[in-house]
């Protein structure tokens, strides 16, 4: 195969595989959410949908849901703004998908003498791109709320815009520390920087060098994704269903997919920035090298598998953490959310930058 053709093929294949992975995970996550919620609440959860009598613990429910959404009446309320009402779900889903582009799924691999990055685009602006696209999600929510022409969606949309803007600030600031430590905003370099050891014992993961930054980022992520305990825009008890009250059928399912894509992408970002991405603890290119000089040789193919596997495992864990937290912590009141955002998160992230800078200054002197 010639050069350009090969590059195009690789690019298309990467996009296809990573998209398939993310969307597959979205489907699984809807099942995990329902089933996990059920078991946490001493229930059984979905277990009825079956194919030829095989129920498989309700695994076919996402399929049934998808079919249902596809075949339901595509309804537009009389008072809705016809164009914006239909655009809103797209505005919501598109930024969520775009986030996948900069996630490194594994180390560079060499196929047929060429080096291939397991990453759709290794942008030099890296994480800033992520901020840019994820900042767009608020448009989808606000547009949906306004275009529905109904009071509850409007309230939900307004709430989410205020909430998302507030936490966008802390989210950005909480990552400054990471950039300072790893001296790059490029995702691949941040991951590569986490391959070393801290004090010769701990993997040099973001969570160990930036514990406060990790907590702040995680909280901000939850608020950005409108997940419990920050799911005020939906607030069933006071806002019916928030900004997507007037949505049904496939348009509603687009909002749902956007939410779960946010979870998946968010999990991947946390894993990449704070948990070493595809790095496996103590695993070098040639094999394990444990503290104390104990080494085990591992064939390169297995190393690659272990690294990709470690990344997938981390993503799965953080995706699960979204669900786990949702069914553990009750929803905040709106004023509490705002207070936490502006009076706790923001000063703390500023403090984190200051402290990081101070330590780096002292260490590098």
């Amino acid at each position, binding site marked *: 195969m010639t050069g350009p053709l090969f590059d195009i093929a690789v690019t298309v294949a990467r996009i296809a595989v990573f998209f398939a992975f993310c969307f597959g995970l979205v489907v699984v996550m809807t099942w995990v959410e329902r089933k*996990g919620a059920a*078991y*946490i*609440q*001493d*229930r*059984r959860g979905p*277990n009825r949908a079956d194919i030829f009598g095989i129920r498989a613990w309700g695994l076919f429910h996402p399929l049934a849901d998808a079919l249902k959404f596809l075949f339901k009446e595509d309804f537009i309320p009389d008072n809705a703004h016809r164009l914006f009402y239909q655009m809103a779900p797209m505005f919501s889903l598109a930024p969520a998908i775009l986030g996948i582009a900069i996630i490194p799924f594994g180390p560079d691999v060499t196929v047929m003498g060429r080096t291939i990055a397991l990453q759709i685009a290794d942008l030099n602006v890296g994480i800033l791109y992520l901020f840019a696209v994820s900042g767009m999600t608020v448009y989808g929510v606000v547009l949906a709320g306004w275009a529905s022409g109904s009071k509850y969606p409007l309230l939900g949309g307004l709430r989410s815009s205020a909430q998302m803007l507030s936490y966008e600030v802390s989210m950005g600031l909480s990552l400054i520390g990471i950039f300072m430590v790893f001296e790059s905003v490029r995702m691949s370099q941040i991951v590569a920087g986490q391959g070393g050891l801290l004090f010769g014992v701990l993997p040099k993961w973001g969570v160990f060098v930036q514990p406060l930054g990790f*907590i702040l980022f995680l909280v901000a992520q939850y608020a950005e994704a409108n997940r419990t305990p920050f799911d005020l825009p939906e607030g069933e008890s006071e806002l019916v269903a928030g900004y997507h009250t007037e949505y049904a059928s496939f348009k509603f399912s687009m909002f749902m997919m956007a939410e779960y894509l946010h979870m998946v992408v968010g999990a991947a970002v946390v894993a990449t920035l704070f948990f070493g991405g595809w790095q496996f603890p103590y695993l070098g290119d040639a094999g394990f090298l444990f503290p104390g000089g104990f080494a085990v040789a591992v064939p390169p193919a297995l190393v690659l598998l272990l690294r990709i596997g470690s990344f997938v495992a981390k993503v799965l864990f953080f995706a699960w953490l979204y669900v*786990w*937290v949702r*069914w*553990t*912590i009750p929803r905040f009141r709106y004023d509490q959310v705002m207070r936490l955002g502006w009076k706790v998160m923001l000063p703390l992230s500023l403090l984190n930058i200051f402290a990081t800078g101070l330590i780096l200054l002292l260490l590098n002197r």
Partner: protein
Amino acid sequence: MTIGVIKVARPREMSFPESLYLLEIVKGLGVTMGHLLSNIVRQEGIKTIEYPEVRRPMPPRFRGKHRLMKRENGAPRCVACYCCSTACPAKCITIVAGESPDPAVEKYPVRFDIDMLRCVFCGMCVEACPCDAIRMDTGWFTPPDDTREKLIFTIDTLLEK
């Protein structure tokens, strides 16, 4: 006279580690994970009753949907005396009496309809019946249906149960 005032204990002030929430959240996560794991391991401990296959055992005196009793030869035991429809506070029983084909019985219900949408399940009809012809001991609720007509139980439906 003032009505009784109950002193409610105010929540105590949170200590500093508590006010950070972090440890408390981890504790909460531990509780939910405990439930999750124990429910996955011990499925039989889940209280959910899987409805159509498994039914909650009803107490013996539960008043469910009605049934009409049969004689030994299969004819309705009801003699269309109208006692149930007279006693019914919801006026949901419609009876039309007729001359029975069995001369020993004389009178029998040509029509016996219970409008289950109107029925309030008070059991007055059962109490009023002099022939023990109507009972509410089926032990189950009126099943849902998609038209009003289907929920007006006719004599044939009532005899089946």
